[in-house]
């Protein structure tokens, strides 16, 4: 080891070279009470995708709500746009450590989706989001109702660009942003929780940024 450094958890196990004058820029950022631990604020909007951007035609787009083998509801684009629209402003937090404040989204809340299919309560405690390109993520329904989650179609007032998940993505801003699944097409209710794409491969099953639940094992 190369001597005493204040934060021992950040020291690599092998010999490291200290680079004169290098320091983290990220720690110079703003409001600590708004920023979850380990995050830094960005004004960019990084694109991170596990696959190529699907080019989805609105004429072909549908969104479905499922329980087991049954279809609880299915909407084409016009029908989906006709559902009650809500606009929210939230901070978002990516597990790769960037956070973006005050992002504005418009779409259909999970509560309004349930109403639209005549459910006064959720059909099961968990959901799996299924997306074009095969991406999946699991979310407890308790984290979607009460205005906590929506299927969003507009970012900052404009249609969401394909690279950012358009035409529609799931939005669950209080969890790490990998849960806000891009290119969502189906929400499937599940009796038992099952891990999605990243949850089954090194990442935390739930993903609360305030508890820094980034990885499986945290």
């Amino acid at each position, binding site marked *: 080891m190369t001597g005493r450094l204040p934060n021992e958890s950040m020291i690599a196990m092998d010999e490291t070279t200290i680079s004169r004058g290098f320091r983290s820029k990220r720690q110079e950022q703003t409001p600590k009470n708004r920023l979850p631990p380990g995050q830094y604020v*960005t004004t960019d909007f990084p694109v991170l995708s*596990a*696959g190529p951007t699907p080019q989805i035609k609105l004429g072909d787009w549908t969104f479905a709500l499922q329980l087991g083998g049954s279809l609880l509801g299915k909407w084409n684009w016009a029908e989906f746009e006709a559902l009650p629209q809500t606009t929210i402003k939230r901070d978002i937090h990516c597990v790769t450590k960037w956070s973006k404040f005050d992002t504005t989204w418009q779409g259909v809340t999970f509560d309004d989706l349930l109403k639209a299919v005549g459910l006064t309560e959720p059909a099961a405690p968990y959901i799996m989001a299924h997306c074009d390109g095969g991406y999946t993520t699991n979310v407890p329904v308790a984290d979607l109702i009460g205005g906590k989650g929506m299927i969003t179609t507009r970012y900052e007032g404009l249609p969401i*660009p394909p690279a950012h998940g358009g035409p529609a993505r799931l939005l669950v801003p209080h969890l790490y942003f990998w849960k806000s699944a891009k290119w969502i097409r189906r929400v499937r209710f599940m009796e038992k929780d099952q891990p999605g794409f990243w949850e089954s*491969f090194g*990442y935390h099953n739930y993903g609360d940024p305030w508890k820094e639940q980034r990885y499986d094992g945290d």
Partner: protein
Amino acid sequence: MTENVSDLVLEGNAAVTLLQELFACDITVARTQCEACGSIEGVGSLRPYAAPMGAVLRCSHCDGILMRAAHTPHGRWLEMKGARYLRFQSSM
């Protein structure tokens, strides 16, 4: 909305590094066969994605996932269920 370019990183190479750390031979020149469509190509020609979270390597013909690698504080992950095999050529 702009793509973040807040430091240039070789995205594909970040993916390669994640994989390479697990193999004794140069992984980029190994050949592999896609389980989904049967096409054979070099690992170096697979399409890399998601490097900041992990490496997702997809078939350049059908976009199916051949392998995934991730490095977290709790360990390294490698999944290859989308690849039928890896073939490393010997130098003889």
